[in-house]
């Protein structure tokens, strides 16, 4: 029986070359009965973890290697034989990747000598048709005893000729010759895709690619019989000689967390204990309750047993740095809400509010690394990142990668171009994918794009697009996942340059790290933290009192009252459309209600149909029952409805007899299910069986499983929700008691959150804040607080709000105004030395009206304004006075919107109300007075359009008129037939039916109208129009 090991196989992580996923390659090789498969992506180990995971369940040896083309055109494959040579290979790749731009590599023979010369890597030489003997000799000299000549026979008509030449060369050099397959795909059916990828890589249509395409489909994993026909037996046998010399698996990779965090003479455990005890004294100055101390002992014991001290110390160190720099931060994630983390200052979530058990996050059986994400102020996160790079050096710290994969739109664009379709049609098809489910290209969309679904090209297009979706396209940087190690990181995993300068990323993404059990710390940016810190600074500046997150009074009923009214524009997490609709129903009364609110209104629980049962039970409309007391323990906090990811996992353990490890696999499968479908069936059977065995009903099992499916990626862990809920409370408190400071801070932190400055300013006004317009004498760059008539804070808009004004321009104005008073526009321009663009931005936004009267006059004056030359500086030639009308109110409003994004004047619809009334269009405030089911006709400016994937084709639109906001529900049928209006209208009119549930009012649309043209008539509306 023939035995064979494939030593040259590329996956789709050799971007735009390989046409199969690493998993597919491994699986197919195992099916074919290969002894081993070497995954040798070009200068990359990005795909090896996936291959490793796939090979675990199969009886096939996975060899780690990589293909290279050196600067002298020498092509080699390097295979790792042990941990040390793997390190050398990884460092070699890092060197090649770091020395040039993202996406390419550069390596020469010296690099090869330096990194591979003394390790035990095996080298396969890939000679050309006329082998370069000099290169062969060099290889033999440098890597004596571990070089082979790889003969790749791919039925190109000259196989025998080539074999003869290569054999001769190998004999001359005295190196062995071995068979390999230059595999690019797992089955020959992938040839079309492989050809297409080549065309995409070369950026030319397929018909012009010519000889750069492979002539046939032989670059696949061939059956043993075919191989036996193609190669002499000795060459095939030699592959096993190589495979046997390799004794390395990725499972051997372990890395140590940095040691330097422990002072000399202290142990890890001792140091962590010391820090925790300090924390206890800080958190509980009067002494901690006994329960807390017991918990701490318990947690410390667990941490020490699993050797996770360095991880906690690393996070502590980063958080300490941020605190030192006054950067607000907060930890969240599985381990973050432990008492130890509370003591270390990693989180502010007081354990007394929660009912956490450490095991839920760090489990001995699972041996899964703890996960702590730390959120920092989004604008100052970079400081933290650079601190980490500096402290641990780039050799020891790097960001995790994110694999950017093909989505339907990108796939259509690339495949369309490769097939030579007209750009017009590709665009049309790609754009029509907006708001589609992303995985399938429907016939309807194809027809809509003017393509004939029956034409062969279109068939090819659809076939190739569906095959290409999900293929990795390139590596990007993870939002903030840091990997830090004690020894050199580049010997653990290759490091490459990111597109952003000053950033380096490793070649593995977060799933890969998790798969191998490697630790990472997530350094994330969170806008609300910036806004909260700014609010505190503003409060300090205005009242002179210091405030911090833990100073705020907890559980303030006034704050909860405001939240229950859904008066939450600007408040973290609960400002979205869906959240606002839920608040009046849920009526949060305490911190834990906020935790539930944050986790409940997510696509996962919504799809899993958990929202309404929870609400009914909360309102007492449905009895709260538990199938067993065990389950009651898990679900009591959420009234018997599983809302958090942890609960689902726990259910699987308790009710279906899963081990914690299996439950974790279930969690992963849930994530994967959302991404690529399938893979859950196995768990379904197991879950149902387990539950039935333990006496639960089939119905119960079905319900739990459908909830698990709905969860998918969107399920929210309780630990995250707990941290977020704290920020919800803090931001709500600020909005409630210090609205001026809060909205001022939000405006200064833009862009962030759901709403644009216009809505924030409106909300601030509603909360009684006086808004003062931008003023060249008073405004700073940021918005500020000024004292109003009652010594309360008023919000002075900052120069940053003027669209198109540069930061430098703002600085010039501030610098110039301290020197002198401006006489007129000419003087202002001269003193500030602003460029035309800045001047125009100021003038158009009406900021300079105090200097020039109206905007039209100002624009006339600045148009073609020349910088005075010194010679003629004093000479003013009088010019004729232009006959310019003053802008009407409507024109001013239009210009405000265009150049500021909002107006402090009247709402545009107030001016148009006359015409709207004539069309029988009602004000939105009137709609709330209508009864449930009444017909109405309303119109408003479109503020947001959302089509959440969880909402089964429903589009949510928020419109605004002079009396407030109104939420529209647009069912798929209406959205489909009136797509253009829905997507295009600025002023949207809607006929529909009022839907009322408690205090929540929607209008369900029957027909949409585009009234945008009415806005064009706005400029004609005169100032005294009523």
């Amino acid at each position, binding site marked *: 029986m023939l035995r064979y090991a494939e030593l040259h196989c590329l996956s789709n992580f050799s971007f735009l070359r390989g046409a199969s996923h690493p998993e597919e390659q491994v699986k197919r090789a195992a099916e074919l009965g290969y002894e081993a498969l070497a995954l040798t992506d070009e200068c990359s180990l990005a795909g090896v973890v996936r291959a490793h995971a796939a090979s675990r369940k199969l009886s096939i040896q996975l060899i780690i290697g990589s293909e290279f083309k050196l600067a002298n055109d020498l092509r080699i494959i390097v295979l790792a034989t042990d941990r040390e040579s793997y390190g050398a290979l990884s460092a070699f790749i890092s060197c090649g990747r770091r020395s040039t731009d993202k996406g390419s590599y550069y390596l020469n023979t010296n690099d090869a000598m330096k990194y591979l010369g003394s390790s035990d890597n095996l080298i396969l030489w890939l000679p050309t048709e006329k082998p370069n003997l000099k290169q062969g000799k060099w290889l033999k000299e440098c890597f004596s005893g571990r070089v082979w000549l790889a003969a790749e026979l791919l*039925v190109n*008509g*000259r196989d025998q000729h080539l074999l003869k030449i290569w054999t001769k060369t190998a004999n001359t050099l005295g190196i062995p010759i071995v068979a390999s397959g230059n595999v690019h795909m797992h089955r020959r059916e992938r040839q079309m895709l492989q050809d297409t990828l080549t065309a995409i890589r070369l950026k030319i249509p397929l018909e012009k690619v010519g*000889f750069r395409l492979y002539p046939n489909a032989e670059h696949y994993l061939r059956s043993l019989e075919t191989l036996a026909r193609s190669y002499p037996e000795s060459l095939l046998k030699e592959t096993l000689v190589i495979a046997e010399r390799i004794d390395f698996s990725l499972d051997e990779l372990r890395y140590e967390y940095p040691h330097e965090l422990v002072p000399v003479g202290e142990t890890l455990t001792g140091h962590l204990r010391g820090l925790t005890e300090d924390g206890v004294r800080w958190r509980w100055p009067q002494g901690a309750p006994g329960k807390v101390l017991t918990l701490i002992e318990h947690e410390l014991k667990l941490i020490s047993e699993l050797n996770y001290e360095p991880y906690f110390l690393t996070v502590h160190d980063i958080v300490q740095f941020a605190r030192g720099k006054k950067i607000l931060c907060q930890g969240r994630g599985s381990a973050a809400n432990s008492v130890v983390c509370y003591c270390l200052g990693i989180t502010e979530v007081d354990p007394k509010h929660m009912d956490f058990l450490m095991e839920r996050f760090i489990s001995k059986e699972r041996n899964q690394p703890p996960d702590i994400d730390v959120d920092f102020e989004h604008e100052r996160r970079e400081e933290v990142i650079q601190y980490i790079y500096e402290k641990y050096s780039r050799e020891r710290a790097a960001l995790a990668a994110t694999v950017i994969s093909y989505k339907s739109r990108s796939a259509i664009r690339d495949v369309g171009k490769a097939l030579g379709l007209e*750009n017009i049609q590709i*665009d*049309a098809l790609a754009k029509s994918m907006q708001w589609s489910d992303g995985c399938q290209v429907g016939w309807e969309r194809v027809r809509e794009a003017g393509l004939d679904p029956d034409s062969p090209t279109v068939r090819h297009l659809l076939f190739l697009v569906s095959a290409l979706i999900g293929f990795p396209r390139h590596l990007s940087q993870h939002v903030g996942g840091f990997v830090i190690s004690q020894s050199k990181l580049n010997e653990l995993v290759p490091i490459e340059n990111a597109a952003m300068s000053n950033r380096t990323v490793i070649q593995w993404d977060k799933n890969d790290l998790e798969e191998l059990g490697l630790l990472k710390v997530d350094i994330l940016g969170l806008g609300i933290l910036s806004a909260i810190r700014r609010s505190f600074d503003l409060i300090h500046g205005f009242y002179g009192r210091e405030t911090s997150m833990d100073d705020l009074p907890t559980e303030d009923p006034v704050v909860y009252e405001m939240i229950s009214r859904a008066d939450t524009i600007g408040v973290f997490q609960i400002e979205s459309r869906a959240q606002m609709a839920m608040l009046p129903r849920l009526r949060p009364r305490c911190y834990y209600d906020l935790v539930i609110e944050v986790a409940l209104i997510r696509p996962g629980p919504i799809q899993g149909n958990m929202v309404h049962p929870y609400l009914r039970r909360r309102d007492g409309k449905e009895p709260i029952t538990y199938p067993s007391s065990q389950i009651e323990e898990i679900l009591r906090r959420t009234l018997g409805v599983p809302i958090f990811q942890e609960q689902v996992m726990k259910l699987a353990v308790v009710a279906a007899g899963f081990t914690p490890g299996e439950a974790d696999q279930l969690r992963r499968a849930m994530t994967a299910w959302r991404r690529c479908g399938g893979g859950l069936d196995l768990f379904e059977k197991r879950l149902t069986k387990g539950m039935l065995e333990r006496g639960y009903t089939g119905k119960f099992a079905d319900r739990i499983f459908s909830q698990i499916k709905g969860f998918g990626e969107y399920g929210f862990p309780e630990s995250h929700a707990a941290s977020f809920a704290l920020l919800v409370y803090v931001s709500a408190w600020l909005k409630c008691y210090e609205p001026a400071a809060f909205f001022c801070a939000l405006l200064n932190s833009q862009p962030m959150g759901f709403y644009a400055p216009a809505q924030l300013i409106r909300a601030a006004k509603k909360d009684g804040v006086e808004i003062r317009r931008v003023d060249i004498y008073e405004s700073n760059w940021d918005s500020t607080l000024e004292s109003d008539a009652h010594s309360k804070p008023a919000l002075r808009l900052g120069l940053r709000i003027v669209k198109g004004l540069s930061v430098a321009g703002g600085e010039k104005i501030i610098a110039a105004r301290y020197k002198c008073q401006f006489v007129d526009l000419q003087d202002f321009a001269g003193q500030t030395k602003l460029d035309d663009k800045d001047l125009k931005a100021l003038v158009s936004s009406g900021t300079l009206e105090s200097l020039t009267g109206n905007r039209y006059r100002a624009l006339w004056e600045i148009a073609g304004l020349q910088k005075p030359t010194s010679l003629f500086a004093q000479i003013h030639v009088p010019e004729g006075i232009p006959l310019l009308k003053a802008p009407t109110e409507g024109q001013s409003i239009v210009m405000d919107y265009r150049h500021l994004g909002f107006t402090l004047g009247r709402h545009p619809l107030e001016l148009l109300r006359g015409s709207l009334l004539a069309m029988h269009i009602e004000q939105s405030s009137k709609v709330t007075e209508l009864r449930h089911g009444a017909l109405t006709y309303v119109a408003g400016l479109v503020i947001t359009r959302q089509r959440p994937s969880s909402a089964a084709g429903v589009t949510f639109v928020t419109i605004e008129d002079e009396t407030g906001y109104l939420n529209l529900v647009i069912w798929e049928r209406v959205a489909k037939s009136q797509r*253009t209006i829905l997507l295009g209208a600025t002023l949207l009119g809607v006929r529909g039916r009022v839907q009322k549930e408690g205090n929540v009012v929607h209008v369900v649309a029957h027909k949409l109208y585009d009234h945008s043209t009415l806005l064009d008539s706005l400029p004609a509306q005169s100032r005294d129009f009523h």
Partner: protein
Amino acid sequence: MTRSINSLSLLTGETSSSPSDSASQSPGWRKFHKNQLWIAVLLPNISLESHPDYDPNEITVVVEPEEGHHRVVVANKDALEIGINRDLKLSTAYALSSTLRVLKRYPDSERAILEAIARRARKITPVVSLVSPQEFLIEVQGSLKLFGGLRAIKKALQTECECYRLTVSLCAAPTALAALWLVRHRSEDVRTIKKLVGNLGVLPLKVTGWPERTQLTLRSMGLQTIGDCLRLPRDGFIRCIGREYLLQLDRSLGEYDSSLEFRPSQSLSSTFEFMDEVTDPAVLSRVGENLIQELVKVLRKRQVGVASFDIVFQHLHRLATVERINLLGPTQDQERFLRLFLDRLERVILPAPVVALALRTGQAEVVVARNMTLFSNGVRLQPIDAIENLIERLRGRFGATHVFGISFIEEHRPEVAWSKSLDLLVRQNKSAALSFSLTHQRPLWLLPSPIPVPGVPNDFPHCHRQAILLSKFGPERIEAGWWSGKKVSRDYYMALNNKGQRLWIYKDHYGAQNWYLHGIFS
């Protein structure tokens, strides 16, 4: 024998880039000559209506690329009805109609038709000026009487455009710019200078065609119409907006003469009329020679060359015989013209005696003349010239389509790896294709289409009765071409038949898996 005129005939007009340019650059502006009347002709839908693929029964738009997407230039009536307007993005248009027919703009045919109509307008007046791809201007003051007034002239123009099934708008005004701006707003005629200010004043700024940025500046100051601009102080207007725009306003009002010249490009023709009927080829060749000499003189003087010419033999009472001669490129080489003329004269069969011989050239194009030696006698032709001459003469004899070259194509499928090429002079750089066919043993002679080899069993025996397979070569597996709908999947082998010929054969992987003969090695 009498010599007739050696004339220039104006065939086509050249667009002056914009009416503003020529005037603003001309050094001396003259006070406007009051007695002018201009008609502006606007063909708003010409890019649609002149499109060769246009079918009025379908919902159709013409689009043009713009910053990464396509935008509608013109939409037909059906399209307008369902809300597809000019300037709409194509993707939006598709969303409005799934049966939309999209045509790409076809500037050549547009221009051809515009020029044709402009040429016809020259019957009315010599002053015809093409302004844009859809507009031209004519000055008709002098023709009013002859053609029976403005209305009649407009009627005539209208009829002309309707012949081409074009939608047309016409407007007359005493200045060219005013006429143009008025027609863009579909305004009424303005006959006197006095009425110009009032009529122009109400026009929106858009009609000026000024750059979007300039218009935006004006609009941002609340200025909407030309009248708003006229009210502004002149010095300020120059500072804010620019001198050239003020000049345009002045010219539209007749402050300055906007003498838009119709600048023609040329083709040349010359005729020689005989006193009586001629049949003697010697006479024809001598006269032809003279005509060519004259032509070359004119060409040299103007530094232009021509790439084609017609020889027109005129007969009494019957249609002229016209022989078209195409060259490989524009030239002014007398020898070349003459040789081709004589070659053709030898072969042409004239149906009747000739009364006049004419030479009519194609478009004259600017050529860079080669350096000549002082004494050109005995100068040897460059090899490239020699080949050009040979090709031209061969084509002259056998017809242009019967002389072609071969070009290699980078392609794995043998049957599409080469093609006939009419462009013989394109040098093949030593392409990958060529070196490929040398390393891969390919026969020079490929059969026009593969011939099935009958009676050969599926597994070709290594020693068949008629042929043996040469095992040294092959198999060469070719699987390619799926994207063109002509996918091949074959294993090629070399075989030796009993005549000692080396054959290139393949086994088809499709269908019955038959064997085919595809080529024979020399």
